[in-house]
């Protein structure tokens, strides 16, 4: 009985134009997917506004520390480090350098560049030495960065 009302709804090819209901009445499916879509957009916009509100308008604060133990493999010593930016802004081209002094004399140096370090971001890496850093004095420090 409902067949006559149903027939123009044929989903296949040619009747596409007819198949679309008048635009004033959106189908339930469209309403639900619009609801979900608004939720997604609102969530992202909300997160942006939240980050904006909590954005600390201050320069990068870079902290560097040795993370974990020194690894000794194949006559090389690997000193892992962890660099984090606990400041507000992003730092670009962060230079981390290391110096190994034995008996007050600089024996080996190392350099790493970290491309980008956003706020609250961490970067990890390692310095590699030929001499045992534990037998000398190891200084690792952040030497420079530039504003993006």
């Amino acid at each position, binding site marked *: 009985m409902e067949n006559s009302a149903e027939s123009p*709804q044929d989903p296949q090819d*040619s009747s596409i134009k007819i198949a679309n209901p008048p635009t004033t009445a959106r189908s339930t499916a469209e309403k639900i997917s619009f609801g979900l879509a608004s939720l997604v957009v609102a969530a992202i916009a909300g997160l942006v506004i939240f980050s904006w509100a909590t954005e600390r308008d201050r320069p990068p604060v870079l902290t560097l520390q040795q993370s974990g133990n020194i690894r000794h493999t194949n006559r090389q010593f690997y000193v892992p480090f962890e660099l984090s930016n606990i400041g507000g802004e992003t730092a670009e081209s962060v230079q981390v350098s290391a110096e190994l002094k034995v008996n007050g004399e600089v024996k080996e140096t190392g350099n790493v560049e970290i491309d980008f370090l956003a706020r609250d971001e961490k970067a990890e890496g390692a310095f590699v030495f030929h001499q045992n850093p534990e037998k000398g004095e190891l200084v690792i420090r952040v030497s420079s960065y530039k504003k993006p």
Partner: protein
Amino acid sequence: MGRSNRASNQWSREIQDIVRGASGGFLFGVPLLYTMEVWWIGSSVKMPRLILAMLLTFFIVLMLNRTAGFRKATDTTLQDELMDTVEAIAIGLVCTGLMLILLREITWETALPESLGKLIYESIPFTLGVALANQFFSGENEADTSSSKSKTATQHSQGTLTNTFADIGSTLIGAMIIAFNIAPTDEVPMLAAAVDGLWLLGFMGASLVISYTIVFGAGFTNQPKRRQQQGLFQRPISETVMSYLVSLAAACVMLVFFDKLQWDDSWQIWLSHSILLGLPATVGGAAGRLAI
């Protein structure tokens, strides 16, 4: 019975609209996803600028929705267009987010502002693609369907081999158009450094799903023709797999052409780089088979 039928009709139409939008987004957005400068800009962008970007996208997409859009309906009111704009942006955001996770550009360790920056900047071309979805293969609209049908009829008589070559050819052309721009850049090795082992399987899966969706799921104008075409791999699944292999081979050849792969590289590098470039190549290949 009639009611449940109508409801499932509604849903299948709605899902097809969304899938069509997402397919358009992939065609437009994938090249920018493989651009590291955009990841970097996203990393350091200020929040007010992101809000501005979202607002701008909203207005541009609204304008596009007035002319193209991703739905088949043509008689729309401003309210419909506003709703579609929100939906287009949501489709763009969700697909871009999934792709960025797949590319390992957004991980658990990525800071929130950085993720938002990457997500919103990368989603702009994606969202434009969603809004243009209907326009992409407008070469043949309904008026054109009859002529394409007659063309198909002549192709029938030419036999399956010709059609198979036509498929391979159009896949190759499409793959070249999209992936040729990406092959010589440093993004592929960069992404390969972040992607390991099983993650590559995810890439393969995503490539296959996106390719299948664009050609068979999205309801682009050309699809009836594709289903009719006779060829050696004419079932949707086998066509998808075969064209994926063609795209992978094309990606590999392009990488060799640009000296990005050398004979003395390990086979793991060959494999991972080809699979990574294979994704945009497959998207291009799928578009190629629809367009040509």
